[in-house]
């Protein structure tokens, strides 16, 4: 019985079958790509190792950066620094962006006052703030937090704003009619009502944070994954470049997963409500 429950899986359309087709094809593809990689670089040498590293070179680069260290520190230090900056910039952006979005969504006057400022700042891509941040704050942490804050701030404001505007009118009217105090109105009506959109905004913010951080570190930094990439590029060290890229991908994926888990927890009531509706 136990084994059966592992192998027999019902897919979304209710078809039963051994190990779902999609997953096995996916795994096969990844396996084939790995074999191709090995064949192209190591076995036949079609791709020269100066252009793209072989699996062995990638592994030795990984050992290199985690043991002796590379670009000013070992892998743990670089990962810790990048992760710390993203988390700090991201939290700072949420702490400022969500309240501003709530205010703009709630009060038409605040919206009319703030929106034009947004309209002129928004078209400037976050990455374009990097040189200014370096001029103002140098190559240290502060400049990175500033640009991450900037790139994550805009999506959180816009989505929170949209979320508040999407709350069902009767809910708001009921709250007004019952004379709900302002503070409770914000914490019990506005924030929960807007939270599905807020989380959409946070996901966009998180992605933007990673892109911006990597760019900022590539332009100039003392530690961090971007720094590893930058030094590896100057040293013409393809193995290390690949290790850096994989690290960026894993960190991006991991933080997105954590946010997804937080979202599932925070929005449990909403999923339940949606399920109850049908």
């Amino acid at each position, binding site marked *: 019985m136990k084994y059966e429950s592992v192998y027999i899986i019902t897919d979304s359309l209710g078809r039963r079958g051994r190990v779902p*087709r*999609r997953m096995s*094809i*996916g*795994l096969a*593809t*990844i396996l084939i*790509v790995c074999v191709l990689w090995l064949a192209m670089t190591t076995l036949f040498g079609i791709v020269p190792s100066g*252009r*793209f590293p072989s699996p062995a070179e990638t592994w030795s680069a990984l050992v290199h950066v985690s043991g002796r260290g590379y670009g000013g520190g070992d892998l743990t230090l670089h990962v810790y620094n990048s992760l710390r900056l993203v988390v700090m910039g991201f939290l700072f952006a949420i702490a400022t962006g969500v309240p501003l979005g709530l205010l703009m*969504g*709630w*009060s*038409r*006057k605040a919206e*009319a*006052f*703030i*929106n*034009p*400022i947004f309209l*002129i700042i928004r*078209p*400037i*891509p*976050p*990455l*374009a*703030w*990097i*040189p*200014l941040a*370096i*001029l*103002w704050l140098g190559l240290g942490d502060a400049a990175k937090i500033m640009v991450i804050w900037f790139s994550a701030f805009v999506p959180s404001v816009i989505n929170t704003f949209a979320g508040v*505007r999407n709350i069902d*009118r009767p809910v*708001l009217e009921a709250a007004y009619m019952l004379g709900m105090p302002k503070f409770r109105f914000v914490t019990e009506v506005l924030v929960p009502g807007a939270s599905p959109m807020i989380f959409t905004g946070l996901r966009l913010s998180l*992605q933007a944070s*990673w*892109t911006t951080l*990597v*760019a900022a570190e*590539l*332009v100039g930094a003392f530690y961090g994954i*971007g720094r590893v*990439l*930058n030094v*590896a*590029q100057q040293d*013409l060290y*393809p193995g290390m*470049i690949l290790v*850096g*890229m994989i690290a*960026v*991908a*894993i960190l*991006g994926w991991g933080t*997105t997963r954590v946010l997804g888990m937080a979202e599932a927890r925070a929005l449990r009531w909403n999923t339940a409500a949606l399920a109850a509706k049908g």
Partner: protein
Amino acid sequence: MNRQISLLQSIGLGFLGLACFLGFWQGMSMSGLVSNIFLPSPLEVYDRFMTLLDRRFAGATLPGHLAASFQRFAYGFLLAAAIGIPLGLLMGWYQLLDEIVSPLFDALRFVAPIAWVPFAALWFGTGIGGPIMIIFAGAFPPCVINAYRGAKFVDPRLIEAANMLGTPSRRVIMEVLLPSSVPSIISGLRVSAGLGWQSLVGAELIVASAGVGYMMVQGQANIQTHTVMAGMVAIGLVGLALDTALRAFERFIQKRRGLEQ
């Protein structure tokens, strides 16, 4: 929601907001609290912008840098559209292709486009090839995703009708899938133009010898904050123009399809 306000009030408040913002900025830089080198006033930035229009800085005038940037952008963006849209459509049509490509695509999606910079420089150099690859990396995913969605959510009745009449696959793709996914594809193009433009700026900050991003890095190296800010204004204006043009195109297509809400 809070009380509605009249149009006049909203315009007035808008101007007040802008005036406060610019006034605060001008005041800060005039008061001497912040050194003028680090925070030039809005008027100085405007002046610098006008000067750069016909004075060379870092090898070219501002329009010259913009032209270099835009050329790269156009190549990268068109390449992304030319490969991404057919791939997305085919993935929407052939389930096997979808199942093969999706895991690779999902794995690569988490690599920030900017993280491709070292390989781009290694493979295609820092002239025009490298930056094009970065733009491609930024603009490609939305093209694929939207074409895929467009093809997946085509009204099944249309496909069933085509199948019943014995239309060959190739013609179903060209004459049913492609036309009915056009609105979704156009929205994807708008997103990908935005991301591509942003990736280009990033690429030019790191590896390039011309372009607006390069001009800004040179401005930063020479501690010319007003040049950096003028570059930001130029990037913002071009980005805005691109977005406006594609938005207008999107609306035009939707109107022709009678999809406008």
